[in-house]
């Protein structure tokens, strides 16, 4: 039992965890029954699954190659964009009326996606300044 064996075990564990989570994401995509429920499985499980695979790749390149930190870029990119993609897909599901209708917002008139006069809304995440 030396250091190389330990690194190989860690790489193997990271690979198995990543593969399992990615698989669970796709199983959830197929199994769940409404559009909004289906959104949960791939956005979370797949993101952590790919993150785990990238950690394995990074460890592998440090243990058996020249070493690179490039995988961090992909990881950061995926973790920043996954919520944005999920938000857009949720808006599409609400817009197409695929799920039970959302409740009334407590303070404002309506939700941005359902607002009939949202031509004036400049961006998705930009709230009105008060």
């Amino acid at each position, binding site marked *: 039992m030396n250091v190389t064996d330990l690194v190989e075990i860690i790489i193997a564990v990271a690979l198995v965890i990543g593969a399992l989570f990615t698989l669970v994401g796709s199983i959830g995509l197929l199994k769940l029954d409404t559009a909004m429920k289906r959104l949960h499985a791939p956005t979370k499980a797949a*993101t952590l699954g790919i993150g785990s695979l990238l950690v394995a790749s990074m460890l592998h390149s440090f243990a058996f190659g020249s070493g*690179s930190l490039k995988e961090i*870029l992909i990881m950061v990119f995926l973790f920043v964009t996954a919520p*944005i993609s999920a938000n857009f897909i949720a808006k599409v599901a609400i817009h197409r009326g695929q799920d039970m209708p959302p409740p009334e917002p407590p303070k404002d008139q309506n939700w941005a996606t359902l607002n009939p006069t949202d031509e004036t809304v400049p961006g998705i995440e930009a709230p009105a300044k008060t």
Partner: protein
Amino acid sequence: MIAPDRLYDLALVFAFAALSLAQILAMIRLVIGPDVADRILALDTMVVDAIGLIVLLGIAQGTEIYFEAALIFAMLGFVSTVAYARFILRGDIIE
């Protein structure tokens, strides 16, 4: 696949099989729909799984030349998901 000479080769084979199965499951959801939101989500999932497969290929061959391909896949996948969703929401992509 060659005979396992390293400890993680079995894990690598398992990961390839699991990600391929994940791709197939996402593809089934892409075909059966039932709505356009599910199809966008299935495409997004397939892009993420494809990035995983590219990373696994890089580990299996011990090279880093696939890194740029994975990064471009991630960027194009995000932009296409947003463009598709925006087209459904607004009927237009760049207003």
